[in-house]
């Protein structure tokens, strides 16, 4: 298997990233390193523009000494792993019941219109993508979105405007490292 030619990902496993991966692997007994797969995929994805090319998945298999298919079957099962490029800032709106009755769909439509994308698409500059996702466990603070490691709750159109500006001005921390 290989990634579609139109997508390209530069793979860079820095010593810091490798050290973090080794730390995660150390949480499981000898011979059970496969257990570290999900946490390791999160780390690899975070360090590679939030997506996992086939080549990066193969790298994960190599690091954990498991077969590539064991990685592919996991990547395709879980929602959080992206198999093609997404925006640097991926705005994930919860659209399940409690958010839906609090106007989540309106706020998401507004965001799509503002950015000129449909759900699932990436803006031409590669900065943003918008997706609707299933319940994120913020039902009492609806509507909400997830951006990187963090939640943004009690959303309004004004808050979305502010967030998009902050992203453009590079004021947003995506990951809590």
């Amino acid at each position, binding site marked *: 298997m290989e990634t579609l030619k139109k997508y390209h990902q530069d793979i860079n496993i820095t010593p810091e990233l490798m050290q973090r991966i080794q730390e995660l692997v150390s949480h499981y007994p000898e011979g059970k390193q*496969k257990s570290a797969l999900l946490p390791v995929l999160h780390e690899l994805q975070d360090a590679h523009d939030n997506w996992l090319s086939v080549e990066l998945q193969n790298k994960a298999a190599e690091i954990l000494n498991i077969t590539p298919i064991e990685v592919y079957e996991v990547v395709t099962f*879980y*929602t959080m792993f992206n198999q093609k490029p997404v925006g640097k800032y991926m705005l994930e709106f919860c659209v399940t*019941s*409690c958010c839906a009755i609090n106007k989540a769909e309106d706020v998401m439509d507004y965001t799509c219109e503002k950015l000129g994308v449909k759900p699932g698409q990436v803006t031409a500059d590669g900065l943003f993508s918008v997706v609707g996702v*299933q319940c994120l466990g913020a*039902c009492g603070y609806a509507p909400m979105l997830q951006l990187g490691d963090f939640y943004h709750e009690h959303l309004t159109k004004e808050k979305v405007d502010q967030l998009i500006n902050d992203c453009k001005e590079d004021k947003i921390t995506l990951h809590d490292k």
Partner: protein
Amino acid sequence: MGQKILFEKIHIPGIKTYDVYRENGGYASVEKALKMNPDDITEEVKTSGLRGRGGAGFPVGLKWSFIDKKSGNPRHLVCNADESEPGTFKDRYLMEYIPHLLIEGMITSSFALGANLSYIYIRGEYMWVFKTLERAIKEAYAAGWLGKNIKGSGYDLDLHVHCGGGAYICGEETALIESLEGKRGNPRIKPPFPAVKGLWQNPTVVNNVESIATVPWIILNSGEDYSKIGLGRSTGTKLFSVSGHVKKPGVYEIEMGMTVDEFMNSDEYCGGMIDDRPLKGLIPGGSSVPILPKHLIFKTANGEDRLMTYESLSDGGFATGSSLGSGGFIVYNDTACIVRNTWNFSRFYHHESCGQCSPCREGTGWMEKILWRIENGQGTEEDIDLLWSIQAKIEGNTICPLGDAAAWPVAAAIRHFRDEFEYHVRFPEKIKNRDHFVNEPFEKVKHLLQNTTV
């Protein structure tokens, strides 16, 4: 003011940090437990009557007593922090604001079970909470509460936090174990139960965050003290995650036994309906449990007060009752469309079905499609019966309860709100806009149903 067990200290400034937590009596249950016989700890938990807080309500002490201690295989305690049931966000609140309470509970409980390697499995979306727990665990290691020979007791425990990848099904305990082994979250066929063959085929207990966080209080006081709180077999306090059309959504800890009326309408809790609009329906225990129509919320079918207990919320079975479930308390006012909301839930279950069992894999998709058809004015009268027939064929025919969880909300919606489905079928032009009942609540237009025939 009811008694607080889990939230007793949550508002102390700095309680997230080890030092403040310890200064306020944190880890005392570990000190006490390490001097006890592990089986006596299990007995205390049995006496407390504590029931699993993830949704199933199975007695925690009894579950612990099933763990295979004879085989000599390594044992594990796994905390289920994969909180994903729509309407539920209580575990996140606990872990975010008082992470050491869960860690303390994990140590005390692991000691009772004789586990030397335990995990907290947290959903991947709660990534900032994952990091919070990672740091708190490091603090606990540094202070000598984890690692080798804890506080000179001779007991060793390693505890780690593990993040998922976004899959509701991993809240089912055997799917969670599969996921923790680095695989797809496909539930296992039981038996064998995890207590005999769980993580890496070792005896394993899987407990919800809230259940484990309750253990320190039980050990420090006693199982008997705990059993005196609450009502009947619904002992202790329970966290409710409140969302939807109320004035004060959020997470509340209550002593079980309060009336639903008081919980929903008192200023101390939900504070009544937002904008004082009329109440339409209530889901008391997360999206999987049946929705209750207005006339069955405050009173049971027998005319008794509906209480916040396992027994009272399920009084009347699924015909006129519901279930306490995970405590995901979702309130709907007259602007909510039950058809749209049911479609929304079916979409959720379709998305989250692992695909192993045909009734669930196919049935959830069919239900979503039919509901979408009805919601968009393209449904027929027969579609309502078709929906009923599909949900009945999913229920009870799958390896894990996700199939049931997908079927129940559909069944309850048709059972209690059939006229809304009929309205969608008969008046497609009135429901074109997705906000149809926001603009014109169903109560105001339902009289139209009497004037027409199909």
